């Protein structure tokens, strides 16, 4: 067994745990009272959420005009946030599905949280296509349903429709995948918890799971299939998101490199977000033994890799623009780097390309604080990447007569903060209500470690 040999080098879970201990440790997080730290974070997140809800209701009741967009820059913060959050989501699916297919066992400690992150991120992302509409109350027109208009269907040629289907599918599949993974752990909670209401809820949700091998066998098949579906799905989703731009004819959008570029960027940003969360979680929830420096180390390496792809994409884009003797294309990129919004461009480059280079050094990788800071930088940088792509391409396009500038309004900023509020509210509730780590899988890993340790020692 290759991975056994690989595992020999260093165990994934430190502090030689017994299976029962694993259960105890992980469930402890949910059974003890929430810490003051948790409450602080939760209230902060909740108030941000409140702010966002206020901003959005004001926008919907008053008009898109409450945003800084104008006749030339038709999208700005709204779609920037959308792409940003979708990107965040992708790392979750990567860790849980793709690494599962590659039999990367280290994922077990983080996949549950990563999947949760995916779902919450997609929720945040989903808000924006909705509220960026001038008349969101007509959003159901995006769905092809029979109607009395003779029948007027929808435009399947529009990337926005592709988007709609992609996001819907992605959310559904991610939820299913997550829930399937949760079943055994819900059963565990059901069977050990003291509180009757928690037992009742867990009882209903666990669908009467009994660790029968027959079920385990099917369970593993389903899990594998969903992982197999999720892998191309996650790639397709961000490819389609990138087509929103790539299929248009705006210089700076109209580029064939977008799909790989976006997917890499998505994983890049997602990994950074996973790191951010994990580092916080392991500190605040005493999970040091499960989320070890090795997990962090591996993810840092992934960040270097994806960051490299992203940096390469920036360079390629620029080169292609200059190489294509298309004046509009050339203009857009020179304008990005030196124009009125160049500060955004250089923020993006320094956060996404320069800063991650620090991770080449093991000393940096092993310094969790530093890693945490870097991960934040990457998050910022990736937000600006979307901003740069969307706004700087639009604000100076073909006809010089319609060149304009763009300034966000307070409402837009509040909306962005609001989505962070939603995300962290959901995440903090998640760490209280659901095992943050896939108990079943970790047990398997633990006993494997023991097993291999035993045989080879």
């Amino acid at each position: 067994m290759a991975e056994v040999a690989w595992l020999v080098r260093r165990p994934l879970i430190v502090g030689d745990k017994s299976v029962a201990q694993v259960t105890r440790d992980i469930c402890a997080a949910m059974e003890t009272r929430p810490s003051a730290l948790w409450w602080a974070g939760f209230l902060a997140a909740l108030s941000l959420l409140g702010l966002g809800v206020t901003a959005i209701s004001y926008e919907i009741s008053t008009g898109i005009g409450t945003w800084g967009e104008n006749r030339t820059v038709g999208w700005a913060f709204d779609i920037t946030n959308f792409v940003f959050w979708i990107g965040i989501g992708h790392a979750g699916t990567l860790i849980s599905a793709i690494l599962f297919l590659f039999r990367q066992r280290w994922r077990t400690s983080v996949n549950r949280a990563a999947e949760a992150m995916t779902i919450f991120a997609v929720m945040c992302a989903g808000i924006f296509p909705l509220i960026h509409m001038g008349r969101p109350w007509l959003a159901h027109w995006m769905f092809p349903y029979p109607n009395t208009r003779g029948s007027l269907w929808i435009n399947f040629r529009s990337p926005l429709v592709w988007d709609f289907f992609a996001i819907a599918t992605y959310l559904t599949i991610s939820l299913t995948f997550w829930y399937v993974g949760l079943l055994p752990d819900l059963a565990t909670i059901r069977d050990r918890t003291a509180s009757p209401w928690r037992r009742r809820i867990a009882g209903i949700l666990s669908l009467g799971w009994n660790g029968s091998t027959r079920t385990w066998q099917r369970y593993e098949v389903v899990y594998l299939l969903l992982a197999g579906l999720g892998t191309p799905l996650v790639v397709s989703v961000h490819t389609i998101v990138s087509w929103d731009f790539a299929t248009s004819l705006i210089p700076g959008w109209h580029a064939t490199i977008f799909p790989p570029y976006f997917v890499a960027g998505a994983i890049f940003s997602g990994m950074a977000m996973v790191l951010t969360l994990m580092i916080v979680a392991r500190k605040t929830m005493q999970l040091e033994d499960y989320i070890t420096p090795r997990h962090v180390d591996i993810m840092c390496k992934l960040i270097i890799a994806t960051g490299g792809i992203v940096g390469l994409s920036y360079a390629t884009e620029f080169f292609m623009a200059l190489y294509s003797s298309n004046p509009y294309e050339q203009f857009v990129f020179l304008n990005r780097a030196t124009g009125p919004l160049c500060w955004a461009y250089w923020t993006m480059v320094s956060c996404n390309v320069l800063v991650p280079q620090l991770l080449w050094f093991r000393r940096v990788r092993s310094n969790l604080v530093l890693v945490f800071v870097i991960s934040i930088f990457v998050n910022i940088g990736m937000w600006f990447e979307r901003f740069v792509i969307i706004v700087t391409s639009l604000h100076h396009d073909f006809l010089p007569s319609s060149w304009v500038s763009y300034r966000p309004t307070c409402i837009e900023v509040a909306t962005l903060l609001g989505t962070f509020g939603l995300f962290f509210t959901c995440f903090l509730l998640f760490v209280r209500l659901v095992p943050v780590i896939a108990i079943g899988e970790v047990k398997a890993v633990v006993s494997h470690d023991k097993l291999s340790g035993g045989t080879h020692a």
Partner: protein
Amino acid sequence: MSAEGANRYWRALEERGAATAAEGPDEFAARREGIDLFLSRRGFLKAAGFGAAGALLASCARAPVQEAIPFLSAPEEIVPGHALYYASTCAGCSAACGMLVKSRDGRPIKLEGNAEHPLSRGALCAAGQASILGLYDSHRLRSPLHRGQRASWEEVDRAVGERIATISKNGGAVRFLSSTITGPTIRAEIDRFLGSFADGRHVVYDPLSCSAILDAHERTHGARVLPRYLFDRAEVIASFDADFLGTWIAPVEFAAAWRAGRDLEAKPPRFSYHVQIEPLLSVTGSKADRRIRIAPRELGPALSHLAGLLAKKAGLTFSSPPPADPELSAALATLADRLWQARRRSLVVCGSQDVATQVACNFANEILQNYGNTLDVERPSYQKQGNDRALQELLSEISAGKVAALFIAAANPVSELPGGENIAAALDKLPLVVSFASHRDETADHAHFVCPDHHPLESWSDAEPVAGIISVTQPVIRPLGQTRSLVETLSTWRGRPTPAYEIFQASWRSRIFARQSQETSFQRFWDRAVHDGVAAVEPARFSPRPFDVSAVKPAAPAKAGAAEGLSLVLYAKVAMLAGQHAENPWLQELPDPISKVAWDNYACLAPATAAALGVAEGDVVRLDFGAGSLELPAYVQPGQHDGVVAVALGYGRKGTARFAGIGPRWLDAEPSVGRDGLVGVDASGALELTDGVLRYVREGVRIAKTGRTRPLACTQTHHTITVPDMFAANGSVRRPVVQETTYAAWQGNPAAGREGEEAESEDLWPDDHPYNGHRWAMAIDLTACTGCSACVVACQVENNIPVVGRDEVRRHREMHWLRIDRYYSGSQAEVDVVYEPMLCQQCENAPCETVCPVLATVHSEEGLNEQVYNRCVGTRYCANNCPYKTRRFNWFNYPHQDPFANLVLNPDVAVRSRGVMEKCSFCVQRIQQAKIEAKQAGQPVADGAIQPACQQTCPAGAIVFGDLNDRSSRVAAAVANPRRFRVLEEMNVRPSVNYLRVVRNRDETDGEKSHG
């Protein structure tokens, strides 16, 4: 219209589904109900908006009950929902263009040029197009005022009558002050009224005065006449600061004539050579073939020198020293040659208010034998009658309190003249001041009585803009308030109250009928005149004295002494003119053709001057001239003379306080008015009325920064087609979105100046979309387009385009479907200007359609790019993907600030709700109308039967619309024209809007010129 008419009118409204009949005491309230109904389009869209909720509602309850209230006895001409057109005369300015009033269910909703009118030839200017909104202005006085209080006509008549009686008994000076009134009947009535006093005089002045021209002709021809200028006959035009395409005398007539003089499609082609010599960049200057910047004080000497040069050629002894600037004198020399070559077919015009200069101008025209050829004093124009000397005398009389009674009509001296507050104070001292103003304007505030005149669309009137051409104004709606026609009022005070209709008919029978010979019966003549809107009669002949050379004195060269400080030039914008349209939101929001700034006036500075002063656009500067100072934001204006600071008149009007709350209200919104609560700054204080002329130039003005800034609402932030070098790889700095060439090059090769290959690339796909029926397309001749922006307003009126207010314009959210892109080329100092009207290009492969998720914008089988407002969910993807950025989004709900103005809405076009995209539709409502009528008649749609609003009103006839599949159509011919190009052709979106290359009358044959 009979008394019944009014009620008919309102019922006719309800025929469209209005609330209740407008009867009972408070007729006005009833009208407001009427108004809600006009909101109902928007209301419905909104309701329809609340998708699920709305549907739920509808399923529980029936839709609200709508009543339909038919006539009791139907007038045969009115068919509900069927538009009628009445010929009338535009009262937007004294040019008196002919127009047709489109009246729908008795409600005037649109003004269109009257194609049969010999002067305006079917065109209207921006101000004329917008003037219909004045009819539905709730700020209009609805009854007479006595000392500012509402009064009844009886009281006013009694009170005024008594005073008049005493005056005519004890004598005393009675003065009637008005701007130019060309109507023979009104003038006669005024004289008749004044005749009943011992000392009565009618004083005429124009806020945009041409007094000097008339004075000059008095000296040279012995009569105060304003010659009629015939630009179409001129092959060489030398204009000294006369903005005849923008604001000078009769821009629409002149633009049409000017355009006729440069027709490349004519056989043989004719193309006049137009030189503009001016201190600031005017619309006319922007179209000139050769433009020379000149300091205002140099203008006189320059013109005088030119006259001298011509005199030498003619062998006369008259010489005037050449200007200091050698470049200028060289230019004048060449100009003199070209003028001389084109004797009898040339024209020298001058906008200066200096009589000596105007005399020199006359002299030049005389030498060139242009009198009787390109300008006509025997059939003169009456469009400017102002006499500044008389005005000055009157003002001194007033301030001396020597006037017993002052009547003021169609004029607002307190705000239009220098020293307004002194005039106001003097007025307060006079025993009787009567104003006929329709608003409580600056002057009306100081009148004892305000006797509001009808809106021109409510009253009978006539006009004789040019000797022998008399046009009729007929009422198309019953007066909306208790106003009374001026002539009626005067007749009442004369003791013989007569309805206006009778006065005019009588006057025509006695005065005008006699002056024609075609018609023998007066009734037939009258009917035809009213039907056509214009009648050609014998002009009141007068034979001018032979030209008096003795009057001509060589001008002294400009004193170098006055050079310190800048010269302040007060000019007029095409929209605001002298300010009579300041209360019209459409015109306030219309970007100035040159600066592209709306909602403000500003201090224009040449780039060099601005740099020297360290002033940037938007910095508030203080202009100190002797008598006072102005504080307004600066605007950097390329092509302006370095020694000049230019400020537009007509702003800072009292009435503009109404715009404080215009535009959407939300937490970050800013008002459209300035700190003083008014739109712009009133610059009339800087005018000078000295030795008999109203002067628009002041020397020795000092300028200083105040440190404050006021960002201007400018719709175009980048002004050239060339991108900054830093952004341009391998030298491709100029974007080929506009193409131009020179006349010389064009003669060699009609396709000269083409950039890139015009090649219909092969289609990737099976040809699923043949256009078998109609194939609508448009062609715009950029050589003809003067940028006057009449089309922009016409489009706004026709298509119910909202006004969004200064703040939204500043945020680049103006809603105009049709905009005019203005690009500079050449150096910062010496600029060439190109105008490119930009509207939805109706692309065959429309990028906007592909990306709309809900099929809200799709293509019709006649090549139209349809926008279905009620289907739109507002993702704005289409606007992002539009390479021309011609789509407009409803960021908010934009209701008319004045709900009464909803009556002007075009019932054939949906009012768009918040959150939907909108754009030019090629006036599809007109297309459908024409198709339906053709279908009924069983005939094909004739070429020219469909005219979009923009084409209909274009003074230069630059726009052609029609069916490409009709090989004989004008648009098909235009598309075949070698000058034709399409914007961003290389993207193969296949726009249906074609442009004809700009041609300038220049000698360089390399059509390409460097654009910097």
